């Protein structure tokens, strides 16, 4: 079973602690939503968990081995990462874009090895991109691009997927679609850690919620235990109620008095 453990992570920028002694442990499959206000440290935490940013203090280990000691390509094969609003810099085709997710498994020269072709086809099919296979990615709509980037992150079948705001800029249908896909992955046994701004989506889909406030973890646990009016008041400075449960859950904000 995959174990990703963060101990006492601290990241300072310009004299300010962006992350301040964050510890968390992730085991096996499941969808974990990281919530918090803008500037709470969500993106920084995800980048550190993904091994892309070295913390000033503390350590992240994968199955007991510190990330800093794992070779870049080996880590990349086990952990997929999606930054916020990912973009393509050249008008390459969707197929090419998805194939780039196999970079850590490719030889230095030459074309895609035949044994990796099925993974590519599967990722394209799973994300409903068959019709767009040869289309330049710069002509895709926001929702299609998000699916293509997700396929890119999943094509190497990593055990862990870390996604920063995977729903940012998506309309409700595509946001739901994206969340459903992430939960499907979690149900299939992957560890999925995503920062989520839409609290209703987090309440409906996540199995566990980690709440950040000013660089610290202020709540970590099941939706029912964490998404309380007190917590939402603390981290977002708004009055809010969580109503319903499971797929019927929603977060209701009161207008500021």
């Amino acid at each position, binding site marked *: 079973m995959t174990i990703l453990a963060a101990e006492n992570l601290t990241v300072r920028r310009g004299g300010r602690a962006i992350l301040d002694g964050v510890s968390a442990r992730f085991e096996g499959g499941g969808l974990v939503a990281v919530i918090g206000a803008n500037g709470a440290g969500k993106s920084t935490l995800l980048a550190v968990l993904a091994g892309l940013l070295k913390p000033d203090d503390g350590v992240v280990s994968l199955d007991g081995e510190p990330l800093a000691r794992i070779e*870049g390509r080996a*880590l990349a094969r086990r952990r997929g990462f999606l930054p916020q609003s990912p973009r393509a*810099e050249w008008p390459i*085709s969707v197929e090419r874009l998805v194939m780039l*997710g196999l*970079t850590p498994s490719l030889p230095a*020269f030459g074309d895609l090895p035949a044994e990796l072709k099925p993974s590519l086809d599967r990722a394209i099919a799973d994300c409903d991109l068959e019709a767009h296979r040869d289309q330049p990615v710069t002509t895709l709509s926001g929702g299609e691009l998000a699916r293509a980037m997700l396929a890119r992150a999943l094509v190497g079948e990593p055990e862990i997927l870390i996604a920063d705001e995977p729903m940012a800029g998506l309309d409700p249908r595509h946001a739901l679609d994206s969340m459903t896909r992430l939960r499907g992955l979690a149900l299939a046994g992957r560890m999925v850690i995503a920062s989520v701004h839409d609290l209703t989506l987090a309440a409906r889909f996540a199995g566990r919620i980690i709440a950040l406030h000013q660089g610290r973890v202020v709540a970590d646990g099941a939706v029912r235990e964490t998404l309380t009016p007190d917590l939402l008041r603390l981290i977002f400075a708004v009055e809010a109620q969580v109503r319903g449960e499971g797929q019927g859950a929603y977060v209701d904000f009161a207008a500021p008095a």
Partner: protein
Amino acid sequence: MRAAITLISAAALAVAVVLSILVGSVWMSPRDILHGLTTPGPDLASLIVLDLRAPRTLLGLLVGATLGLSGAVLQGLLRNPLADPGLLGVSSGAAFGAVAAIYYGLASHFFFAAPLLGMVGALAAAGLTYAFGRGGTLSMILAGAAVSGLGGAGVSLALNFAPINAAYEIMTWLQGSITDKTWDHVKLALPLIPLGWTALGFTGRGLDALALGEVQAASLGVSLNRLRLVALIGVALSVGAATAAAGAIGFVGLVAPHLVRPFVGHQPRRTLLPSALFGAALVLLADVASRLLRYNGEEIKLGVLTSLVGTPFFFWLVLRLRRTAP
């Protein structure tokens, strides 16, 4: 499609090589050349081909392929269609080294002082760019711009104080040319240029991943620091040696990648080989044209011609960007 563009560029290069051997102030037919080369003893045809046109052609090929390849690598690395081989300060360092050799009169005592000091200047410039610009793409561009400025200032300084003869020589050198280059020039450039090509060839996979931006490329296990360093080493060796041997030849490194990119689905790695082949073809064709375009008996310099032909392309690029940019 992508095999086709490699074939087309290879064919264009082959045509350019043949023209470069045949065309000049003395026109040669293939039969003259065959006859000259197969009969023992020196005659005019074999002298012209072996001592003048062959080294000139080979040098043009090396220089053009270097410009095309390094332009493609830098445009991929920076994901910027306006990047060209001079961006990292290497060409301007080479120019400054060569100009210093001319200014101090070393070049008139020792024929290879200019290209040798040019290479020293190129490597020093690359070292300076790396020392100040490592750790980030933007810092590397800025450091390259600073080093370019420094080299340019050095060249201006030399022109400022140079006596009129030396100033004329410096201007001529700066214009860039492969006229009157000998086998010794080729021998000087030959060890470094393929070494640089090899380094540049290893950047392909990383350049492809950079199509996703730096964060995603890093998340895929691409070491951006290593990629930037390998690209800089490759450019320093190949562009440095090419500029030291032939002077500054503009626009080829900028244009060649653009010509081939649409045919390889914009994939950065696949741009490299056809861009190198096209770059070589462009330099050779421009050189052939420069032999024919005379004004008062004077050949137009290769670097001048590529700039004249390249500038309209630049305008076209601007117009196209304006049309397609959001």
